[in-house]
């Protein structure tokens, strides 16, 4: 088969099993867009801004487990995509981003719409390529997909100069079924000796704690984690990124840990004697002050990325390997072992129940203002925990993580590592396109949503019935909260004047808008919106401006040093 570079790209994507590409055309990719024209194998989703293309592809990857694919032009197309690439990089999401480039003869000449895309993206990709010869195109793409989705996943950029896709130059094409790279061979199997040592330590624990992260989701190890945790009857907590890998409604689950984690999870971390970290990377939002982190614990760390091990917290038993494989091995060993000390474990659970009794997520249920927590609790009940929930970044994100209990993985989609405002709406598009028949909800705030609001237009074009929960407190809530707690209430630039009328805005984009400003109307409004199966509904909830996210570990504090909402009332 003789094909041009542009045709090779599209044929390759089809052969690779890619169903959907998120993109935006421009000069350097016109040959590719011409190859897209008239074919139906690979669906192209036209966004309104390249940042949204990357977030949508990222969310598509998060909910399906398959790499998300982006196609943008050179110059501003590539730079607009950078925020989304960095977002995927910090959360280890598999993506392949194809950027157009000026023709090879013009590279380096400051040509129109030229940027050094490989240079600009280098620090925020797993790897990147510049294709200099059309004969290398197919195999480079194969490598990109392989690197993106193996080992610790991540985004890979393939920069393609315009002449490489020239329709006049046709070459033989064959789909490269495999690729080999001598410099890239990620470890998958854990070291048996280390696994045995870890299991011995796990069984000797008196106050054990399981701490899991996004790696469990990425490795599809949810089943293995459930078996592991239930076999041991140990308490388990999760990072923001790992929510859903273990059922949020299960008795053994203590909720999220970290800066806005639950009292019981954080106290459990502080007091535990053996910490079992699984597919988590000891992020600063999780650990709090490093000197005070798990002071009494021996630490086991299972991670596919050797560089994640002992990066910030020194661990006692590192196991490099794919979480799924390692947990399978551990479960096999545990099956044949006896739990040594159930009395000690009993005592530990009693202590945990005591912490739980603090009811750290309690909020004022009698307010005459809408409490954001209440909206999310209602949303959780009405969707029975089965929605795909995307979020933006800020207070609403933390409340969603605290109040929406995820029982399955890949349902909670948020920018955990980079904390990218503007992520929520395009992410909801990617999730909805991947799961056409499922309920997709975007939890956002009036500041975040405006960072990618233009995508309401994309939602109309593709008929995406996303439900947007806008928790509108007229503040950049998390910024305001920090200013209240650490800057004596000097609310510098955290208040946004001149907000749009979101109802009219939604309507002008062809969607349904709802305005809800009374607590007693929340439930009915949600019912009404959720029943509109075929329409995007923008719900503008006017919430209590002063509400803060609790518990909170302020920076420089340890897990045991939490600010609770009750402390605030006393103060």
């Amino acid at each position: 088969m003789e094909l041009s570079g542009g045709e090779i790209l599209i044929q390759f994507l089809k052969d690779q099993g890619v169903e959907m590409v998120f993109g935006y055309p421009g000069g350097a990719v016109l040959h590719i867009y011409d190859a897209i024209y008239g074919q139906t194998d690979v669906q192209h989703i036209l966004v309104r801004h390249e940042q949204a293309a990357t977030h949508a592809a990222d969310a598509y990857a998060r909910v399906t487990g398959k790499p998300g694919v982006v196609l943008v032009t050179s110059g501003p197309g590539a730079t607009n995509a950078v925020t989304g690439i960095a977002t995927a990089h910090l959360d280890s999401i598999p993506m392949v981003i194809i950027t157009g480039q000026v023709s090879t003869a013009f590279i380096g000449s400051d040509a129109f719409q030229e940027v050094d895309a490989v240079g600009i993206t280098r620090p925020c990709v797993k790897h990147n390529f510049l294709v200099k010869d059309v004969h290398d195109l197919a195999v480079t793409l194969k490598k990109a997909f392989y690197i993106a989705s193996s080992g610790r996943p991540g985004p890979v950029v393939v920069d393609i100069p315009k002449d490489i896709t020239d329709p006049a130059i046709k070459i033989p094409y064959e789909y490269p079924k495999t690729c080999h790279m001598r410099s890239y061979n990620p470890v998958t199997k854990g070291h048996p000796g280390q696994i045995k040592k870890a299991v011995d330590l796990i069984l000797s624990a008196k106050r054990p704690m399981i701490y899991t992260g996004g790696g469990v989701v990425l490795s599809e190890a949810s089943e293995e984690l459930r078996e592991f945790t239930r076999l041991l009857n140990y308490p388990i907590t999760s990072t923001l990124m790992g929510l859903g890998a273990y059922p949020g409604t299960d008795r053994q689950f203590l909720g999220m840990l970290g800066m806005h984690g639950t009292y019981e999870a954080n106290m459990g971390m502080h007091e535990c004697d053996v910490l079992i970290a699984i597919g988590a990377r000891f992020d600063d939002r999780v650990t709090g002050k490093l000197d005070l982190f798990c002071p009494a614990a021996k630490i086991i760390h299972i991670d596919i990325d050797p560089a994640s091990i002992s990066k910030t917290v020194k661990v006692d038993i590192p196991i490099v390997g794919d979480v799924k494989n390692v947990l399978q091995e551990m479960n096999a060993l545990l099956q044949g072992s006896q739990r040594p000390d159930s009395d000690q474990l009993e005592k530990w659970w009693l202590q945990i129940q005591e912490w739980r009794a603090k009811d750290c997520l309690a909020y004022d249920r009698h307010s005459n203002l809408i409490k954001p927590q209440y909206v999310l609790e209602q949303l959780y009940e009405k969707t029975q925990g089965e929605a795909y929930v995307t979020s933006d970044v800020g207070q609403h994100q933390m409340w969603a993580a605290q109040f929406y209990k995820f029982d399955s993985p890949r349902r909670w989609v948020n920018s955990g590592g980079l904390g990218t405002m503007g992520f929520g709406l395009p992410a909801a598009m990617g999730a909805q396109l991947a799961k056409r028949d499922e309920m997709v909800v975007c939890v956002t705030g009036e500041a975040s949503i405006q960072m990618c609001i233009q995508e309401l237009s994309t939602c109309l074009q593709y008929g995406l019935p996303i439900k947007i929960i806008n928790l509108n407190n007229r503040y950049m809530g998390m910024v305001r909260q920090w200013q209240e707690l650490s800057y004596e209430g000097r609310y510098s630039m955290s208040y946004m004047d001149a907000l749009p009328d979101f109802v009219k805005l939604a309507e002008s984009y062809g969607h349904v808008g709802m305005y809800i400003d009374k607590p007693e109307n929340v439930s009915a409004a949600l019912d009404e919106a959720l029943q509109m199966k075929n329409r995007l509904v923008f719900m503008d909830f006017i919430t209590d401006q002063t509400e803060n996210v609790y518990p909170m570990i302020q920076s420089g504090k340890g897990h045991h040093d939490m600010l609770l909402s009750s402390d605030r009332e006393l103060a």
Partner: protein
Amino acid sequence: MRHIISILLENESGALSRVAGLFSARNYNIDSLTVAPTEDPSLSRMTIVTRGSDEVIEQITKQLNKLVDVIRLQELTEGQHVERELLLIKLLAEGNDREEYKRLTEIFRGKIIDVTDMTFIVELTGTGDKLDAFLRAVEGKNILEVVRSGTTGIARGARRLEV
């Protein structure tokens, strides 16, 4: 602590900038960096001299290993090794200084590789310490230009860095 890390990597455009970028992005030190293709032109060998605590060096080696272009690396300072650096120095050499610099060059087992009526160029290889000592030995005001290659090295005995 000073460490020498030898890296075997794909001889591809951009590979050097990935390594250099990693050091700046993660706030690691580079004292020196040398790189050139090996007997196999598809491979480059790089030698980096860096400083840091054991934890930092461990992170550096892990992060380097994580780069897709890096095939293998070795910390030379972990075992017996040989390290060398090349110094080229242009000296103002007039009058009595000419004899003095000839003598110094012999003592340090260097070579004078260019002579004019006013200048010498001296070539010297050795460890960084030896080159430092030579620089101290010649008078500062007569040094016209100095160029050093940065350290390169190889493990002694059977220890090898190979694909």
